[in-house]
C-alpha cells in the first residue's frame, strides 16, 4: 500500500515534470523488429516489424526518419518518425551492417560485410552513387568532425581505413587489434577511438599522424580477459567522459576522455552492444544482446537506473526528439 502510494506519487511527479521527452529506436537483431521507447516514461510505445536481421540504426539528420540496416534483406529501411511505419528503402549493397551520414545528411556511407566494400548513397535521390573497396568484413563507420575523412574498420583485416570523402580514395590504413567494430571521433577531431572486440582493447589514433598513440585496456576482477570484448563507444559532447560497451563482460566501462583511464565499470545486461545518449546527455541507453533489454545509465551519477525489456537480441540504438 505504502509502495503503491509512493509509486503513484512518483508517477504524478514524473508526469508533472516532462524533463526529457525523447524517443529511442532499438533494432532487435533476431526479432526482426524495432522497439520504440519513450524516454520520459521509459516505456515501450511501439514495436515496428522490419526486414531481416536489423542492426545499424540512426536518425536522419533532419530527425524525420529513422534508417535501419536489415542485413539479410540486403537493404536499409526508412521509418517515418511521425507514423512510425516503414516508408522507403535505400539501395545499400549486400549485407549492410553499420552506416554513417555526412553532417548535411545528404550522403550516407554503408559498410557491406559480404563484399568488402563501403557503399556511398545519395540520400535525396535515394541512389547508390559509388563503392569503395576496403578490407575484409567492413564494420565500423564514422566521419571526422570536419567531414573530410570517412573512417571504416574492417574486422578480419584489422584496420581503420581513412577515406578521403571528396576523392573516395583510401589515404591511410591504421592497424589496430583484432576485430575492430566501432569508431568514434572526439568532437574536436583530436582523437579517433576504435574498439577491438577480440583484441579486447580500444585504440586511440592520432588523426593527423594517422597512427595509434595509445590503447585502453580493461581489467575486471573475476573475469577472464577473453570475456572482455569492447564494441560500442559513446562520448559526451565535451569529450570528457566516454562509455565503452564490453560485450560478454556485461559491463560498460566509464573512461576519462583526457587521460584514457578507466574510472569504473557499470554492470548492465548480457552481451552489451551499442549505445546512444539522450540529446540532453542526461541519460545513456545501452543495448544488451543476450538478455533482451536496454539499460539506462544516468550520465551525471554514472549509475544504471533502469532496465527496459525490448525485442529479441537488441543490437543498435538511436535517440532524438520525437
Amino acid at each position, binding site marked *: 500500500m505504502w509502495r503503491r502510494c509512493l509509486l503513484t506519487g512518483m508517477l504524478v511527479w514524473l508526469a508533472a515534470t516532462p524533463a526529457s521527452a525523447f524517443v529511442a529506436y532499438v533494432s532487435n537483431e533476431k526479432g526482426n523488429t524495432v522497439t520504440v521507447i519513450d524516454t520520459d516514461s521509459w516505456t515501450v510505445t511501439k514495436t515496428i516489424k522490419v526486414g531481416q536481421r536489423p542492426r545499424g540504426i540512426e536518425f536522419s539528420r533532419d530527425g524525420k526518419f529513422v534508417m535501419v540496416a536489415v542485413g539479410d534483406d540486403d537493404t536499409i529501411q526508412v521509418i517515418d518518425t511521425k507514423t512510425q511505419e516503414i516508408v522507403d528503402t535505400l539501395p545499400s549493397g549486400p*549485407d549492410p551492417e553499420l552506416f554513417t551520414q555526412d553532417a548535411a545528411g545528404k550522403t550516407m556511407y554503408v559498410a557491406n*560485410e*559480404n563484399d*568488402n566494400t563501403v557503399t556511398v548513397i545519395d540520400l535525396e535521390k535515394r541512389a547508390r552513387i559509388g563503392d569503395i573497396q576496403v*578490407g*575484409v*568484413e567492413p564494420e565500423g563507420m564514422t566521419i571526422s568532425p570536419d567531414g573530410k575523412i570517412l573512417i571504416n574498420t*574492417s*574486422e*578480419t*583485416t*584489422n*584496420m581503420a*581505413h581513412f577515406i578521403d570523402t571528396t576523392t573516395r580514395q*583510401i589515404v591511410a*590504413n591504421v*592497424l589496430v587489434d*583484432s*576485430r575492430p567494430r566501432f569508431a568514434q571521433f572526439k568532437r574536436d577531431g583530436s582523437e579517433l577511438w576504435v574498439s577491438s*572486440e*577480440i*583484441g*579486447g582493447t580500444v585504440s586511440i589514433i592520432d588523426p593527423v599522424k594517422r597512427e595509434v598513440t595509445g590503447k585502453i585496456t580493461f581489467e575486471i576482477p573475476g573475469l*577472464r580477459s*577473453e*570475456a572482455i570484448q569492447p564494441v560500442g563507444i559513446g562520448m559526451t559532447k565535451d569529450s570528457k567522459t566516454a562509455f565503452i560497451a564490453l560485450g*560478454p563482460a556485461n559491463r560498460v566501462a566509464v573512461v576519462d576522455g583526457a587521460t584514457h583511464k578507466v574510472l569504473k565499470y557499470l554492470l548492465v545486461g548480457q552481451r552489451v552492444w551499442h549505445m546512444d545518449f539522450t540529446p540532453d546527455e542526461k541519460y545513456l541507453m545501452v543495448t544488451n544482446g543476450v538478455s533482451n533489454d536496454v539499460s539506462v545509465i544516468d550520465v551525471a551519477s554514472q549509475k544504471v537506473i533502469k532496465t527496459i525489456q525490448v525485442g529479441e537480441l537488441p543490437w543498435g540504438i538511436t535517440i532524438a526528439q520525437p
Partner: protein
Amino acid sequence: MFRWLIGTIALSMMATGALAADPVEIHIGYLGHAGIKSTLSLVEQPADNDGIAGARLAIEDNNTTGKFLNQRFVLDEVKVKDSDDVVKIATDLAGHNDYIITDLPADALLKVADALRDRGTVLLNAGAIDDRLREQDCRANVIHIAPTRSMLADALGQYLVWKQWKRWLLVAGSHDQDKLYADALRRAATRFGAKIVQERTFEDTGGARRTDSGVTLIQRQMPVFTQQAPAYDVLVAADESEVFANYLPYRTWDPRPVAGSAGLVPTSWDAAHDQWGAVQIQNRFVKLNMRRMTALDMQAWTAARMIGEATSRTNSGDPKKVIAFLKSKDFSIAAFKGTRLTLRDWNLQLRQPILLADGRMVVSVSPQEGFLHQVSELDTLGVDRPETKCKLQ
C-alpha cells in the same frame, strides 16, 4: 644461378629506387594427402579440395589486407599419395615456402617435421588430431591448428555432463584411431564425472558402405547390437573409421540419443555455424568454392590466416620475425568462435572453442559454463600444462 639472378634484380631495383613498391611475397605451402576417405553418409563425403579450399580463402583474405601493407600471399599446393616419398616432396616444397600447412597422418607429419627441422620451416598441422603429436612426440617446428581427440572428447563430455546425461554406453570401432578416440572419451568421462556403464566393440568385418538394399539389413542389425545394455542416458560412439556410428541414431534398442562420431558430434567447424560473425566467412567460402565449409577447411583457413595475421602485425616478410611473433604472448587470432584463439606455449596447440553439431544445427559450443580454469577456460579442453608430456625441441 637463379639466386644470382634475383640478386641482380634486387640490385637493379635498388638502383632505380622507384620500384620499391613491389609487394613483399609470402609463400605458404600446402601439403595434403591424396585419396578421399569413404564416409557412411553420402552428404559427408569430403570434396577433393577439402582443406585446400579453406587455405585458398585465407589467401584471398590475407591479400585483401596485404594490398594495404604491400604484401602478397601465394599458396603452393601439393598432394601426396601413400606411395610417394613424403619427405622428398616436403623438402622440395620447403625450398620455396617458409611455412607449410599440412594435412598428413601423424607418422608422415613427424617424418616431415624432423626432415625440415634444420631449415627453419614451420609446419602448421591442420589435419592430424592425434594427442601424441602434442605430447610425447611434440616438435618445436610444428604448430597445431587442428584440435586434439582429447579436446574434442572433452568438449562433448562437458556438454553431456551439463545436460545430466552422465551414464554413457561406449561403443568403439576396432581400428586404431577408433581406440584412441575411445581412450579420449574414457578420459573425458573420468574428468567430468560421467560413468561408462558398459563398453562394446563394433568389429569391422569389411563390406561396402554403399549398397542398394543396405537399410533393411542395418535396421535389423543395430537394435540387436545395442540390446541388453545396462541403464544408460546416451550412447557415445568412437568410430573415426566410418564403419558403424552413423547407423546408430534412431536404431538403438533403447530410445537414446547418440553422440561422438554420430548424432551430436564435437568439431572445430560446421557449415551451420552462424554466431560471432561466422555467416560472413560461410558466405565468402560458398562464393569462392561452390560448396559448404568443413572443419578441415576451417583449420586450413585458420592456419593460413595465422601467417597473414603475424605478417601484418610484424609488417615483415622475414619468416624469423613472423614465427617469433606467432610463438609470442602477443599473438592471437580471431576465427569466428566468439573469443580470441591463442597458442599453448608448452606444445604449440591452438586453444579453441569446440562446436557440438548434429549435422543440421550447432547445438552448443564448449567449454560449457561452469567449467573453470585458472588461466583460460579453453584449457579445460584437452591435455593441460600440468599433465603434458611435451618437451619442445
